[in-house]
């Protein structure tokens, strides 16, 4: 059986004096359709774990598989293709292109798949409507509120229908009301079938997820396990 995301004894060591081992031997499998919260204090290695899962970094040892493809074996252009086709990433700081419209930002999610501009915009408009921003399509990203920006970022991650969406503290830069809105959106999307992994230290976010993985010092110390109806894990 192939999992959406599969980490097998993954280690990540950053060179230096002394070398820093951010992730030390994490094994984790995420099934299609899961909503997983990776929780831990800062420095616990959860962001590194997310970067590894997003194909933005390669593990020092162990294996990271996205939709069955081991990222550590892919050359740059293949790995970039994997990110473009199979992965969607949402960041705490949104990282939108401020001068561009919401529509163009979301359409950018399909840019490196070589999809034609008109088609990209059509898909982007659909997803923007889905995240509740139909009225903001032609507003510049820089003019939107924090909650709206994060919705644009989520739409950008979703527009390519990725195998898994990875979100790094998606509510971290938002007030509690906007944060709750984003959380509700992530839950709705998950109910519709999107696989989501959220990295957070926010208890509310962690509580919203069906599965909770606790990390400390680069290790998984507790995993509440997959939902029985989807996974094969206990």
């Amino acid at each position: 059986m192939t999992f959406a995301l599969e980490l097998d004894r993954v280690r990540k060591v950053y060179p230096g004096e002394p070398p820093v081992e951010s992730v030390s031997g994490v094994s984790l499998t995420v099934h299609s359709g899961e909503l997983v919260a990776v929780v831990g204090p800062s420095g616990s290695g959860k962001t590194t774990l997310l970067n590894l899962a997003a194909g933005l970094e390669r593990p020092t040892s162990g294996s990271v598989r996205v939709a069955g493809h081991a990222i550590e074996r892919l050359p740059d252009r293949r790995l970039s293709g994997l990110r473009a086709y199979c992965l969607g990433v949402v960041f705490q700081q949104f990282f939108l292109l401020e001068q561009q419209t919401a529509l163009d930002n979301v359409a950018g999610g399909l840019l490196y798949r070589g999809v034609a501009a008109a088609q990209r915009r059509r898909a982007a408009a659909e997803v923007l409507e889905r995240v509740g921003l139909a009225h903001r399509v032609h507003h510049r990203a820089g003019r939107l509120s924090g909650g709206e920006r994060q919705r644009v970022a989520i739409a950008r991650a979703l527009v390519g229908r990725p195998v898994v969406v990875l979100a790094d503290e998606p509510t971290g830069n938002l007030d509690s009301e906007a944060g709750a809105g984003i959380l509700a959106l992530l839950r709705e999307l998950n109910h519709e079938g999107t696989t989501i992994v959220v990295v957070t230290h926010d208890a509310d976010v962690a509580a919203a997820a069906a599965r909770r993985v606790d990390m400390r010092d680069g290790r998984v110390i507790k995993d509440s396990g997959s939902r029985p109806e989807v996974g094969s894990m206990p």
Partner: protein
Amino acid sequence: MTQPFANSRLRAADLLPVGTLGLRTRRLRTVLSVIGVAVGVAALVAVLGITRSSQADLLARIDRLGTNLLTVVNGRALSGDEVPLPVTAAASIGRTDGVLASTPTAVMNGIGAYRTDRVPAYRGGSMTVRATDPSLMSTLDGRLARGVFLNDATVRYPVAVLGYNAATSLGLTDVDGQRIWVGGHWYAVAGILEPLELAPEIDWSVLIGNPVAAQDFGYDGHPSRIYVRADTPRTAQVADLLARAADPQSPSEVNVSRPSDALAARLAVTGAGTALFLGLGLVALCVGGIGIANVMIIGVLERRNEIGVRRALGAARRHIGVQFLTEALLLAVLGGMVGVAVGCLVTAGVAHRENWALEVPAVAAWGGLLSALAIGAVAGLYPALRAARLAPTEALRSV
């Protein structure tokens, strides 16, 4: 559930919008970098254009004046005064193969020309009195500003024709009833010549006939300067023969010169100046290129987050590199186009002022654009590589 996926790719049609994003969002910086390159390219184009236009003008003048005029003088002259050649020189030059026409002239040393007889003789002017014959007009291809030239009849009488500068110096603008005081004799002024570019010494001469020179000043028939028109393709060979023809006893003392060489030398001089200014233009262009490199490096630093997001969205290293290289090339090409336009305008302005025909060599326009492109490529390469090599997680670290 193994989902297939393709390599990441960026459509060619998307390259321009992506590559111009930085230019569109940072307009002032774009304008300043474009100006930097434009100054260099404009300098190159203007230097080449102005040189070409002035050379074209010189070439046209050389063409008009001809390159087949030779002058023969005695090389022993030390002080600048002309020294006599043998009496037979003119005749034997006339017989030399390849000579179409020749006219001897002789300076009457110590003879001055004045407007009145009240000027003391020691206040000699810069004019020379020169004996010659009527063929001088056709040999020099000269033109009269006023009056008539010497003819077979007037060479016997006290009649003078003035070179252009001589007339100006004597204050004569017309010839009607004017006379001048030449070495103690009154001479009637028959004509005034237009300036002669290839024989400037005639411009400063008062021309009188050989017979009247013999009569009034004891001219003995020794010419001091002989003008020769040669068959154009054989001009150089004819020049080699003239020294021996002029003075068979001591040919080494005879100087044969080709006045059009002076114009040709000016042509070479404008070319030499061009190399210098072209060099300065290239320096300016390099400075413009460094400006682009600077702006691009700053851009890469400022846009780290954008680079990181693009990598996260699926951009390969090459796509990031190409994006920034495109931006640098566009800056350079914009600068190149502005520079070519400005260079042409400057050339047109100078050509208009100098009354030249406007001529901008195509190589200047293309060369300007291409050198801008090359500068852009060189300037953009390092920043583009730096952007491409930036690790995604490094790029996503908040600044």
